[in-house]
């Protein structure tokens, strides 16, 4: 395979590829990121292949395997072009029908199309889905169009054109000026202006500089970086090469978490393809610029997402953070000036060069430009990755795009920014979101995880969950984080067990403030946020746990009983059979009862009780006491 040694050859390559494209009547696109594969997309691909073969349609029907399409709730799914017909939640048994009806007869298969859970309206075309309509998919739209394992697909959608423009028509200073003009801010969470970061690193004097792509997406509940790396790895690589040129770096690293095997695979393939084609390595595109990228797989430590820890990890050491300054731009990897950006930030770079900073900066709010990808997960109808312009309101994301709360429940809070972020309550739903408004609300943008919580989510338990997470992931280097998160977790655990005391809340706040101000790195400095925001917005819930020993959301096990309502139970034996500890007694067609002394509160009976009957309930507070007392009196 020949290396591209001039921008004109890149153009020729693209033209040739487009001319050689088989003229299919229809193309079936299968979403096959990790979510897709976990839901069975590989079996769908197998079924499609065998069906196309069997019906002799190879010449007329194309099959394209792509990364994630964003609407993860409906995996495994396919889109049939040119119409854009979207079929959801497929099984291999559906495939013969899809081929016979839609491919051969141009008919829709009604049972496979999407129904909006909120309105009941049905949609056959992907572009009409309310989920997609309010999005602005600048970065993620290409996930529909390219096979991430084929560089040719990226070339056909003008891939590496921004790189050619930068290398041959722009000076490094001009590139930085363009990024500064776009007002792009770091998508990893803190929102530092990207162009400024590059400039500082460029101005640092050194014989060697490095750039790093931080793909250690450790925030639980966030997976947009995984989706970009899996679905469009070349866009990130192109952004990195442009950044390296602007900064004057000769070497780059992509640090990917080991929990993302498919992303590691796709990035490795993409790097090799770029190298073979002369887009990485010596004399890129025939210019005098040399640059290469290595991939480093993380090893399962959340703290390695922090930039100084990440560099320590690349150097082959414990991922311990260190004091800043010196900042990485001054002294980074192996003591050399280093620029670190997150995956999504890098992916924005080619886009800004192609469209121009002026056009790019029209999207968004005064302080935050462009789009942001959020992972909309938790108790929401339309779970998935959504890319929206900065400044959109939470309400628009959760209700218009997300289709509202699951099972018609009430919205309670949305958690943004992972363990460093906070919980935002219902009264803030009309908040236009950008870096600054979220910070004012006590949370942060973070990497973009958005976990929706409903009335069944206990906010004290959520705070405990996050503190459990941070105290486990604290590297232990500095005392405030190591000991402080542990103490906070202990207090929260006590409260969720009904052992809380009134002074606990003051102590929590005091500890939170100490940990926040005295910790060494971002992990500790932000770890108290989930506690502080839940205390700020959901204090009555804490008080209920402490004063009434009750968990209003019916989550905290120690404060609950499971109870079979005798008037409702039909005696079907299902719960009795499903109970792992044989705590349920009763005979067929006779009322069942739970022995509270034996019950471990696993919830199996509630899950298994038929929805039509619904005889199993959870009770807390006074009602719980009453049930336990009754039980006691029966014994006496």
């Amino acid at each position, binding site marked *: 395979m020949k290396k591209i040694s001039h921008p004109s050859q890149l153009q020729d390559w693209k033209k040739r590829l487009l001319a050689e494209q088989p003229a299919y009547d229809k193309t079936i696109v299968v979403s096959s990121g990790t979510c897709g594969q976990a839901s069975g997309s590989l079996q769908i691909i197998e079924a499609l292949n065998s069906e196309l073969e069997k019906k002799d349609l190879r010449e007329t029907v194309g099959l394209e395997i792509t990364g994630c399409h964003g609407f993860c709730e409906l995996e495994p799914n396919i889109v049939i072009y040119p119409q854009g017909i979207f079929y959801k939640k497929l099984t291999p048994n559906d495939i013969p029908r899809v081929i016979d009806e839609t491919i051969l007869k141009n008919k829709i298969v009604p049972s496979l199309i999407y129904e909006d859970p909120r309105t009941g309206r049905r949609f056959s075309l992907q572009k009409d889905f309310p989920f997609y309509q309010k999005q602005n998919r600048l970065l993620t739209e290409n996930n529909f169009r390219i096979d991430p394992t084929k560089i040719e697909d990226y070339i056909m959608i003008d891939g590496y054109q921004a790189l050619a423009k930068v290398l041959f028509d722009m000076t490094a200073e001009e590139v930085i000026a363009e990024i500064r003009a776009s007002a792009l801010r770091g998508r990893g969470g803190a929102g530092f202006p990207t162009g400024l970061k590059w400039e500082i690193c460029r101005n640092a004097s050194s014989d060697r500089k490095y750039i790093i792509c931080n793909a250690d997406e450790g925030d639980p509940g966030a997976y947009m970086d995984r989706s970009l790396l899996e679905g469009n790895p070349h866009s990130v690589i192109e952004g990195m090469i442009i950044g390296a040129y602007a900064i004057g770096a000769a070497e780059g690293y992509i640090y990917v978490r080991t929990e993302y095997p498919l992303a590691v695979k796709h990035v490795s393939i993409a790097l090799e393809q770029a190298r073979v084609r002369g887009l990485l390595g010596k004399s890129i595109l025939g210019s005098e610029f040399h640059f290469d990228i290595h991939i480093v797989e993380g090893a399962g430590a959340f703290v390695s997402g922090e930039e100084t820890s990440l560099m320590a990890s690349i150097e082959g050491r414990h*991922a311990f953070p260190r004091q800043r300054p010196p900042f990485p731009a001054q002294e980074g990897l192996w003591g050399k000036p280093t620029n670190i950006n997150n995956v999504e930030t890098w992916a924005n770079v080619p886009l800004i060069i192609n469209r121009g900073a002026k056009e790019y900066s029209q999207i968004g709010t005064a302080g935050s430009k462009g789009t942001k990808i959020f992972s909309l*997960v938790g108790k929401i109808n339309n*779970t998935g990755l959504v890319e929206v312009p900065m400044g959109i309101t939470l309400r628009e994301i959760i209700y218009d795009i997300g289709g509202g709360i699951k099972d018609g429940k009430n919205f309670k809070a949305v958690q943004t920014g992972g363990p460093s972020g906070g919980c935002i309550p219902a009264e803030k739903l009309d908040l236009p979101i950008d870096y600054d408004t979220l910070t004012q609300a006590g949370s942060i943008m973070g990497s973009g995880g958005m976990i929706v919580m409903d009335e069944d989510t206990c906010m004290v338990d959520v705070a405990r969950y996050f503190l459990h997470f941070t105290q486990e992931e604290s590297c232990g280097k500095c005392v405030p984080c190591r000991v402080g998160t542990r103490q906070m977790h202990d207090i929260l655990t006590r409260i969720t067990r009904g052992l809380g005391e009134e002074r606990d809340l003051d102590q929590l706040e005091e500890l939170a403030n100490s940990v926040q101000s005295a910790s060494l790195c971002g992990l500790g400095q932000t770890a108290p946020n989930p506690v502080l925001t839940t205390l700020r917005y959901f204090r009555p819930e804490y008080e209920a746990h402490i004063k009434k020993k009750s968990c209003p959301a019916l989550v905290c096990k120690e404060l609950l009983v499971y109870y079979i309502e005798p008037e409702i139970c039909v005696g079907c034996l299902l719960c009795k059979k499903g109970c792992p500890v044989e705590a349920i007694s009763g005979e067929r067609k006779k009322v069942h009862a739970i022995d509270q002394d034996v019950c471990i509160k696993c919830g199996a009976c509630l899950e298994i009780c038929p929805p039509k009957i619904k005889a199993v309930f959870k009770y807390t507070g006074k009602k719980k006491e009453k049930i336990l007392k009754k039980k006691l009196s029966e014994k006496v």
Partner: protein
Amino acid sequence: MEIAKILGEFHGLQKDLIHILHRVQAQFGYIPPEAVAQIAECLKISENEIFGVLTFYKAFSLEPRGQYLVTVCLGTACHVRGGVQIVEEMERKLQVKAGQTTPDKKFTLETVNCLGCCAIGPVVVVNGKYYSHVTLNKVEPIIKEYREAG
């Protein structure tokens, strides 16, 4: 022998350490203590430092893992959908605690802080195979699949 072969693919630099540990872990299912001495000699760093690094990161284990590695996700999205109950049910069915291996060396149960497939949670992964929307009642069938597989 096999460790020497892995070491031969690298340049004997400290920055290779995590890559090497990944390779050894993948090859043996754990990091055998004798491998540590060989790595230390090759990279010219102390065994002490290597033990420090490998116990810092969760991806490495000093004990052999079972034939099937059962990983239950406890990311936020899985947590609010009941991931903890899934772990507890797994613990009951396998009769080991998270982090342990069954006496017959068949299963190792572990938890992970997020696999990034939050839309389909709660998620369980067995040797790379993903199970989505796992409920308490699906736990037994998942385990059974591997018990019977031999």
